């Protein structure tokens, strides 16, 4: 990936700021070296696009307001294929329009980054209130079997850090990455500390490839058992490292050309999914608090993490043994860490700002030696849970 050094000092807004969530997301992406933004106006994302339109020319980049969300993500795919980091940002209804292109990017392993500032759904919903309704859609929205990575920040500082990290993850695993924000997190103003440009450069994690590595294979290769994956560099349009034809139809893994052979197609489809699923221990980021002696654990991702943290502190003060397992990445599900957690606790309390889109996924792993660990979902919408809601649920479960 190409990060222009002459503008990088400008892209990193070093200092301590009071930034809105949407602005923090924009600054995080600029610090990661994003040089192209294509978007369509939609509440509650508009501030991110406005900030990008002002900052991108200062940082050597181009801002395009496209005619619809489908054009936005298609333009981002085109820009990423030229070797630049690019992103788009949208909300739920726009994200639904982008699903065909997400599926296309997942097939061709194009590392695009999509920011989803979610709002209440379904339908047009409530545009200014939060609801994590696109969690399942991010992974299963497009046609076909594929996997993506989704990061879930809970503070404006984390929006900056995880937006930055999203680009690293996308490039490292060559997969579309989604930044999960929402109408609440996008609009609150919080303290964001942005380090110096040299500090941020160290965090960039750009891989250098030799010309031989670039010429070998266009797509990820794997061994026969589909356990070890070799993620090959993205073929860059306009260079000699681009194979003569990259089609949007299923290709054979070795040749990279389109195929109608069932065996080759099965191998390709499995590689696209398993390179993420079988490496979830390296990709998933979790935070664990007070789990060593916990009877009950909260589990959360995104802004309910703040409520769960507060509730855990209240419970501990009252002498209740409560821990907190926080998912900073929602997809892929951190299966290895979950198995460790299930050995430690007797029950899980899961506050989600939707009707339980991840609780169902967790229940699959909530079983130790044939004994089920109950997952108590607390669904909600259009705002945060209160800590007292969570504390009373803990008391109910422990009694």
């Amino acid at each position, binding site marked *: 990936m190409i990060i222009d050094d002459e503008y990088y000092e400008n892209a990193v807004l070093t200092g301590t700021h009071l930034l809105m969530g949407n602005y923090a997301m924009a600054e995080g992406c600029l610090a990661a070296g994003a040089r192209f933004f*294509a978007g369509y106006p939609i509440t509650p994302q508009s501030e991110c696009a406005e900030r990008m339109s002002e900052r991108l020319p200062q940082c050597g980049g181009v801002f395009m307001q496209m005619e619809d969300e489908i*054009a936005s993500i298609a333009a981002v795919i085109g820009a990423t294929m*030229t070797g630049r980091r690019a992103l788009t940002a949208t909300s739920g209804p726009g994200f639904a329009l982008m699903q065909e292109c997400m599926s296309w990017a997942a097939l061709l392993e194009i590392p695009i980054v999509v920011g989803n500032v979610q709002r209440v759904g379904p339908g047009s919903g409530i545009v200014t209130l939060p609801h994590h309704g696109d969690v399942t859609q991010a992974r299963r929205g497009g046609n076909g079997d594929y996997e993506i990575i989704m990061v879930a920040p809970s503070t404006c500082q984390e929006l900056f850090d995880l937006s930055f990290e999203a680009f690293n993850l996308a490039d490292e695993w060559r997969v579309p990455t989604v930044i999960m924000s929402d109408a609440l997190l996008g609009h609150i103003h919080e303290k964001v500390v942005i380090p110096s440009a040299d500090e941020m450069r160290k965090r960039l994690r750009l891989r250098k490839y030799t010309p031989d590595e670039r010429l070998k294979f266009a797509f990820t290769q794997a061994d026969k058992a589909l356990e070890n994956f070799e993620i090959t560099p993205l073929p860059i*349009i306009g260079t000699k490292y681009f194979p*003569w034809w990259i089609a949007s139809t299923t290709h054979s893994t070795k040749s990279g050309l389109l195929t109608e052979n069932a065996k080759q197609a099965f191998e390709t489809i499995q590689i696209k999914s398993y390179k993420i699923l079988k490496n979830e221990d390296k990709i998933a980021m979790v935070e664990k608090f007070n789990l060593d002696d916990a009877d009950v654990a909260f589990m959360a991702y995104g802004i309910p993490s703040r409520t769960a943290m507060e509730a855990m502190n209240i419970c501990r003060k009252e002498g209740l043994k409560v821990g907190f397992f926080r998912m900073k990445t929602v997809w892929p599900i951190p299966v290895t860490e979950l198995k460790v957690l299930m050995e430690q606790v007797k029950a899980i309390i899961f506050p989600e700002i939707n009707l339980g889109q991840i609780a169902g996924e967790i229940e699959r792993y909530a079983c130790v030696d044939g004994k089920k660990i109950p997952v108590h979902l607390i669904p909600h919408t259009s705002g945060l849970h209160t800590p007292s809601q969570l504390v009373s649920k803990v008391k109910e479960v422990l009694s």
Partner: protein
Amino acid sequence: MSYIPIPKSPEKPEHPLGPFTNTGKLTGGLPIHLFCRGCGYGAVGQAITRVFVEENIDIKKYPFIVNVGCYSQMPLVLPGDCFMALHGRGLAVATGIKMANPELKPISIHGDGDLLAIGTNHFVHACRRNIDVVIILLNNKVFGMTGGQTAPTTPTGYRATTAPYGFEEEPIDSVELAKACGATYVARWTTANLRQFMKSFKTALDHKGVSLIEIVSQCITYFGRKNKMAEPIQTFRFIKDNAITIQQAKGKSPEELKNKWIIGEHVNITKPELSEIKYDLIKRHGGKK
């Protein structure tokens, strides 16, 4: 590829342009194609290859964006790198490529269903923005790849697989649409005018701004067979007879011009091009916090 038979040695005499096509490079000079008998797209592929070879143009600066349709197989007979986009989204991808790397000039190859049905929104805005892209519209008047259904360019009254009683709607004129949206180079040719198309294509490659070149082509398998023109020469003649030049079209009434294609260079003007404006912004504001 799994279903394309690659011959061991070329049995037919070598075409001089064969070694420059993508499949010609693999087989030692004999290009492979999968077009139907009588299809005009093979000739278009040859015409494009000829321009690049004769004018000695650096093909790496012109990535092809091939959309979804019968012409999705054009990479077999084209001379350069091809990236296939989703149905109708090629121009949005071309915008992204041009804005991220302004040294490249994408050539976007569309079908009539791709550009004027699902992709019309992107077409209108690409023309309006005057991005430096060459749009080649291959108009065979039907949706060929999916089985010959009607397209927005099917002439009124003619049959297709989803219009067994004759097409009820009026077709759209891509040249008029491009003019209305502000395109700066607009031309229309047919597969009977490929020499003029090659000159037009060269002009479009040098033109700074959006260029639209439409090529009306024959589809024998669907449009021809459904409309009693099952022999390639019949459909070819049908197109040639219904194609009139701009000079001949002057002074004719709308009834006389119904279902006719007006060929020639319709527009050739200069306007500021978008990637130049965007990169000029960087020169003026780059480096300020």
